[in-house]
């Protein structure tokens, strides 16, 4: 059995090497190598069994402790108190010194805000500008400021709503021309893209932790772990009929943190 196992191991190891040399598929390569390993297991297992070695050999356990305390030189022992403490404080000071470089590792905090600016045209990920009637009612698109596709924190969901369903907040009149309402696509919970729009219920849904936001009511969270509404991007229409931003988001985009005060 040991011989058979070793024969399998040798044969299949060689076969796997050849298979690798001739670019065989990963499945064939993997299985040939796996069978070679099985050969080793068979050989070693059989050899161990054939030994018929006893499993009740004994050797004494020696207690490892406690042992006698290490004797200190007498002059050290008498002056120990103050010196011991000072050594400890010195060690602590060096530990703090060791952390210092890591504090410096933090770069300047990225400037707050997104790439959206007043008058920036709304574009699709292909950098095509969007008109107020580009989306049909019920349509949805991921949009960015023109020429800044993929800019951090700037991904925005543009949704075209029927004209009278949006519950316009008092301070947000005119932010959604022709039913084009835009919310940040970065979830306020953990920063995932709020990528799924449920047409029937006018809800945005985050695939990571299932937070649901009510598109008709300022994207306030209605279920799931999110606690804050998705910020709304104020839109307008320029002279040529293209959607533009009135400015950057007025609320922080993305998840909350200690330093991100409202």
């Amino acid at each position, binding site marked *: 059995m040991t011989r058979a196992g070793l024969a399998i191991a040798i044969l299949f190891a060689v076969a796997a090497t050849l298979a*690798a040399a001739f*670019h*065989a598929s*990963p*499945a064939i*390569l*993997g*299985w040939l*190598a*796996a069978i070679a*390993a*099985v050969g*080793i297991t*068979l050989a*070693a*297992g059989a*050899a*161990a069994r054939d*030994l018929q*070695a006893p*499993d*009740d*050999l*004994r050797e*004494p*356990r020696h207690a*490892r402790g406690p042992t006698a305390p290490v004797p200190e030189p007498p002059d050290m022992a008498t002056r120990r108190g103050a010196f011991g403490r000072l050594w400890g404080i010195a060690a602590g000071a060096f530990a703090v010194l060791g952390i210092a470089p890591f504090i410096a*590792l*933090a*770069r300047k*905090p*990225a400037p707050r805000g997104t790439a959206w600016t007043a008058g920036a045209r709304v574009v699709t990920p292909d950098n095509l500008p969007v008109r107020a009637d580009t989306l049909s009612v019920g349509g949805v698109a*991921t949009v960015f400021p023109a020429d800044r596709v*993929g800019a*951090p924190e700037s*991904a925005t969901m543009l949704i075209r709503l029927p004209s009278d369903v949006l519950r316009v907040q008092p301070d947000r009149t005119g932010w959604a021309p022709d039913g084009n309402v835009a919310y940040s*696509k*970065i979830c306020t*919970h*953990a*920063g995932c*893209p709020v*990528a799924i729009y449920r047409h029937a219920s006018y809800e945005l849904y985050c*695939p*990571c*932790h*299932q937070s649901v936001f009510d598109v008709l009511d300022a994207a306030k*969270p209605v*279920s*799931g*772990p999110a*606690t804050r509404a998705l910020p709304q991007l104020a839109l307008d229409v320029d002279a040529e009929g293209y959607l533009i931003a009135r400015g950057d988001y007025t609320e922080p985009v*993305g*998840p*909350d*943190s*200690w*330093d991100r*005060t*409202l």
Partner: protein
Amino acid sequence: MMRGIVAFLDDRFGSNAGARFVLRKIYPDHWSFYLGEFALYAFMLLVATGVWLTFVYQANPTDAYDSVASLSRAAPIGYLMRQVHHWSAVAFVAAILIHMARIFFTAAFRKPRELNWVVGVTMLILASLTGFTGYSLPNDALSGVGLRIADSVLLAVPFIGNWASDVFTGGGFPGPLILQHLYTIHVYFLPVIIALLLSAHLGMLVYQKHTQFVREPQNVVGRRFWPDYALRTLAALGATVAVILALAATVEINPIDVYGPYKDWTAPNPAVPDWYAAFLDGGLRIGPSFEFTIFGHPIPALFLPAVVMPLVVLSIVIAWPWIDAAFTRDHAKHDVLVPPTFAPWRVGFGSGLIAAGTFLTLAASDDAQALAIHQPVQSMVTFYRILVPLGSLLVGVLAGLFARELRRRSAAHGTESERVVALRRNEHGGFDEEPVGSAL
């Protein structure tokens, strides 16, 4: 030739004395003692395939995805290497957890082995972190979302959150340096620490000698290392390699070309992390939708499930040897393992904890489950909010009662005596019972 090498070394180092010690050493034998070895061999596979992968991987946002995705196109062996690496990581963490459960339920962590338990738990944490940093390296759509969540969790930490996030990302997510940082952490930092801890783990094991089920505290009872145990562990090595290779060759893991490259405005749906990180994701999904402020600083909803929960659980697990000793008022040294049923309350606690972890892990796919049974996701969230505390409690209590019943039965049948005594003749011609060390 072998003889020549041995003589050469012995002449210079006197190494035969050490070799004799290693080869003649006796190891207690039991099938469950191989669980830790599976983890060790998975780690060896990880290092071997990992070194190979570093020759291909490019740690920058532009090339990272293509450098990994092209592995499968360029040469089949590259694809296999990545599959073996990922499967080994999955197996590594799994083997550590199962090994740890064995240590826990047989009370192998008791004095004098508390520190080795601490080292082991630390390795579990580092192994999970290595796994997470590793599967984030390809910069694919799924792992990119995971990184974003990890960054949000960092941000949720009071005081240092923003600093930590800036260090991690290089200044705002996704940051130009995040992959480079992950590469350093994944390739140099964590594996080296794991290797050092692994040496300490095995060094302590050899020095303190292995625990055993044989109730003979004064002796190590088992098999000689050479050639008996060496052959057995070689068989375990072959089996580990075979299983991982077969899995890698048959079942595709982390299909990044299905996910596509990461863009911060797209996410796969459903999005679920690797299994050992999923309990955290489950916690995030069912965690309370509740944010409060301290002195005007927000404490985000993430803080409780993603920072406090794991820290509390891990603190309890790390401190378990001392908690257990305080609970049992047993501060004696133990080299003999107990059958799990010996301490039903410990079985209960351990099973409850495993159940909680399992339920949280299941909660990480609540959206897929909701879809399968045509229920709203919110109902599943409610279900898991009830299941995690109450279900775990129930599992713990039932497991404890079950263990107590088993212990009662084995005691009734006299199959397992828990008391080991020496009989000593006394001057009246009778026998006195004398406890032998601390048998269990």
